[in-house]
């Protein structure tokens, strides 16, 4: 009787062991799959919404040929997508409100918003929409796209630096950011007024911060 019980127990153990051995759900395999899926998600193209509070757009222009004068735009909106493994999947779509131009002088702001410069009532936004993104080094990307300023759209190519990304907790969420500096000629966009007094070349610097959606 004892022998029968022992034999039955061994048979049951063997059956369980056999079933476990041939089970399609191997815990180790499952763990590996989960890790791979997470890695794939990191590489997937992620959408970010521009955080207007932590995004900065400033510009500089030569004044009277003696110094650079700086100003900023206080309202920047837009979105971008991020895929560091596959940059051609990345895109940028950024808008700046021209009437948010701020040079720390109310009358000069009014002048800049007038038809002499931005004509902010008729052309309320400056926009950049990327067409292609290519990696050009460690954390740098060559971004080609259309810049629309003063109602004139021109293709430009800029070098963007990928500054960083990370989960910044519940308050800030997952964030990523870029920095870009590029120079345009305002006359190319039909902004010719006060040439000489003000330079033709305008350097625009944008620190772009986005929150993952």
């Amino acid at each position, binding site marked *: 009787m004892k022998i029968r019980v022992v034999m039955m127990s061994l048979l049951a153990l063997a059956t369980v062991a056999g079933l476990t051995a041939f089970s399609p759900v191997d815990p180790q395999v499952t763990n590996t799959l989960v890790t791979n899926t997470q890695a794939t998600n990191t590489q997937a193209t992620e959408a970010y919404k521009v955080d207007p509070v932590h995004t900065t757009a400033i510009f500089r222009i030569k004044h009277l040929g003696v110094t650079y004068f700086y100003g900023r735009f206080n309202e920047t909106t837009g979105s971008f997508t991020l895929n560091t493994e596959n940059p051609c999947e990345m895109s940028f779509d950024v808008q700046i409100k021209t*009437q948010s131009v701020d040079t720390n*002088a*109310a*009358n*000069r*702001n*009014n*002048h800049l*918003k*007038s*038809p*002499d410069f931005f*004509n*902010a*009532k*008729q052309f309320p936004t400056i926009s950049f929409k990327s067409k292609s993104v290519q990696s050009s080094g460690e954390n740098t990307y060559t971004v080609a796209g259309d810049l629309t300023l003063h*109602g*004139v759209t021109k293709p430009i190519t800029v070098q963007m630096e990928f500054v960083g990304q990370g989960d910044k907790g519940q308050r800030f969420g997952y964030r990523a950011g870029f920095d870009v500096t590029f120079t345009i000629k305002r006359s190319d966009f*039909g902004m*010719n*007024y*006060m040439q*000489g*007094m003000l330079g033709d070349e305008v350097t625009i610097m944008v620190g772009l911060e986005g929150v993952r959606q």
Partner: protein
Amino acid sequence: MLNTIVLPVVVPMLICGAVLIIAWRLRDRGRLIRATALGLGYLSCQIIVDGWPAFPPHETWQWLFALVVGAMVIGGIDAVGRRPLILRVIGAAVLAGMSGWLIVLANQEHLWMHRTTVAALLLLWLVTMHPITSRSRGASVSLPLCVAFVGVSLVLVLSGNAKLAQLAGGAAACLGAATLVAWWRAEAGLGCESIAVAGVLTIGLAYSGYSLSFSGVPAWAYLVAVAAGLAVWVGALPQSRKSAGWKAVTLTTLITLAISGIAVARAYIAWRADSANDPYF
């Protein structure tokens, strides 16, 4: 300095003055040419300030170039023959309607109210100014209008529209040249054939300045600056007509100056309010 002030003032002045003198030399055959004096002077100013115009224009205010050409055509038709009143009113209505349509921003809030206001103001200008200017001689039109345009120019510059102010200044320079020519030869001065150009410019520039500006200058200041030009009517009053020509012109000009002064003073107050710690301009 040369490009900002001297050229946009001197060149239009010379062109307007030269055209008026040529028209005077041609006597009756020169009436059509005289109709183009103010318009050609202004067009030269816009080219100097803003470059050769594109068609269609990129910005709404740039339509003034084409509208001035249209106003010159209407003035020319006025100059070469007497048209029935109804045709004159239709011509004025078409010009006013086109002005309201073209210089008002398509994305303007209360779009039709703006368009109607611009068209109605221009129509009012043309209908009221034509009878008086058709009877006037010498500097009785050009001098008060010159003062009114200087007022419009000052209001525009104080509201942060330097380019539009330059254009109004160019028109004022043309009218200044016309005044000098009229003092030299009374019959060589501007007449009714230039009133359409003056109307398109004063209302077009003031409206563009108002609608495209971000300054605190209120709408009524622009309106008063435009209305100053209507003081030309003072010269047509019976009391003025009885007095000597120079007295009537002086009185009209002083009234224009006073009305313009109200507009400029209001614009200056707004400019001061925005420049507490700001030495801009």
